[in-house]
């Protein structure tokens, strides 16, 4: 089937390139994306990002038009559904206004200040994806806009998308939680656990350290035990009822975020100030348990608190 001629040097060339490729893979894995390979990535992305931004300006409206044309048949039903949802939401807003007024009164009485709302937010446009198989997203904001590796990323509804994996001065690469590589520490009610990506589906696996069952529709949010995300951000909802076997429970979670329609994301400047977070100015000690976000073994660590 395959033909080969005498004096042909393609096979030695192939072997040489394969060896170089394997060495590159090994080096990249061992350096964890840093070092020379990190510089190479940053340089290449810095060169291509302006072209991608330019192309996205032209391409995005075209894709939107094509998508809207293909979806025109279902638009009428969607409008009716959305009108019903809007009516429900407006009724909820009215119902919540009394609660809000009462809350403000109590905050004034006890001189309370809200926390957690001072996290910086940078909106960014999704300009592309490396290829059909790579689930990562490329955005049009980089170090020039204050983006750093590891920052959490949400969609415009506040649902968890993923975290920043690579950043250049003008662009960044985001890896969604639905494709990994690790899991996310989450809470369902007062029970804590981890959600992990699965192969060939956006549905994630939920492993809980549970004493009580969970039910379909239960809200899954990021846990305060997470080292990657601030607590309380919605991740998804439980797909099926599940009861604990022993001290653990496994079920599936449908993420709230819709990756295929994601055009704008919000990057959180979190933790707000990593340096002050590790240099407390008080001597009070608190103990916290950190859940593993790779689905492996659990560890316990002790940290110094700042709330003396």
């Amino acid at each position, binding site marked *: 089937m395959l033909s080969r001629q005498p004096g042909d040097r393609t096979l030695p060339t192939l072997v040489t390139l394969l060896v170089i490729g394997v060495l*590159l893979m090994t080096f990249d894995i061992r350096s964890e994306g840093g070092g020379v390979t990190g510089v190479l990535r940053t340089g290449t992305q810095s060169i291509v990002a302006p072209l991608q931004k330019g192309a996205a300006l032209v391409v995005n409206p075209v894709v939107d038009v094509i998508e809207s044309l293909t979806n025109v048949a279902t638009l009428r039903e969607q409008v009716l559904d959305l009108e019903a949802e809007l009516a429900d939401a407006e009724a909820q807003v009215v119902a919540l206004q009394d609660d809000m007024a009462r809350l403000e009164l109590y905050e004034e009485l006890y001189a309370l200040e809200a926390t957690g709302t001072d996290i910086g937010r940078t909106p960014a446009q999704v300009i592309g994806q490396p290829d059909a198989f790579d689930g*990562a997203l490329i955005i049009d904001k980089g170090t020039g806009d204050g983006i750093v590796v590891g920052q959490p990323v949400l969609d415009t509804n506040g649902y968890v998308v993923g975290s920043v994996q690579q950043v250049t001065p003008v662009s960044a690469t985001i890896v969604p939680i639905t494709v990994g590589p690790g899991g996310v520490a989450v809470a369902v009610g007062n029970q804590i656990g981890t959600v992990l*990506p699965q*192969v060939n589906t956006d549905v994630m696996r939920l492993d809980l350290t549970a004493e009580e069952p969970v039910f379909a529709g239960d809200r899954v949010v990021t846990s305060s035990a997470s080292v990657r995300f601030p607590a309380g951000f919605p991740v998804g909802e439980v797909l099926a009822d599940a009861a604990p076997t022993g001290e653990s429970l496994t079920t599936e979670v449908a993420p709230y975020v819709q990756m295929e329609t994601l055009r704008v994301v919000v990057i959180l400047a979190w933790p707000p100030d990593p340096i002050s977070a590790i240099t407390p100015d008080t001597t009070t000690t608190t103990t916290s348990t950190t859940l593993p976000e790779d689905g492996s073994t659990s560890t316990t660590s002790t940290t110094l608190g700042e709330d003396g």
Partner: protein
Amino acid sequence: MRLRTVITVAIVLLVAIVLQTTLFSQTSLFTPDLVMLVAIMLCLTRIRPELTLGLAFVAGLAVDLLGSAVLGLRAIVFTVVAYLALRTRERADIGRVITGIWAGLLTLAGVVLLLLVGTLFGQTVLLGEGVVDLLFLVPIANMILAFIFAPLFVRLVDRDSTAFRYA
């Protein structure tokens, strides 16, 4: 390889990378792997086979550098696909349809190899939703594009208007 050919190939690769990472990353049904297709179609040109392998490696490395998977993964895959293409290219210039099928089969081999090696190296980022569908959609899209553009591509790179006329 002449400077003009180098420039032509570099521009085609750059355009393929930009189109793949912007336009075709947002389409759900038509999802070609343009850069792999360029690496395959380069094997139909008169560029020396060793250089073609090198170009395929560089093309794969460029996509690796833009992606989130491990560096060198696509470089290896594209090089192997280019090698298979070089070994079978005599069978590709029989007719336009055969060229398309040939490119589609090579793409299928490429994506299977990509997922296989990626899985071995723990690249879960490649195994997201719809990966099984993509195993077929990507080769089909590449087959269609090769059917349409392969002769034009060879004529452009070789600067030979008589190439791939399927006489």
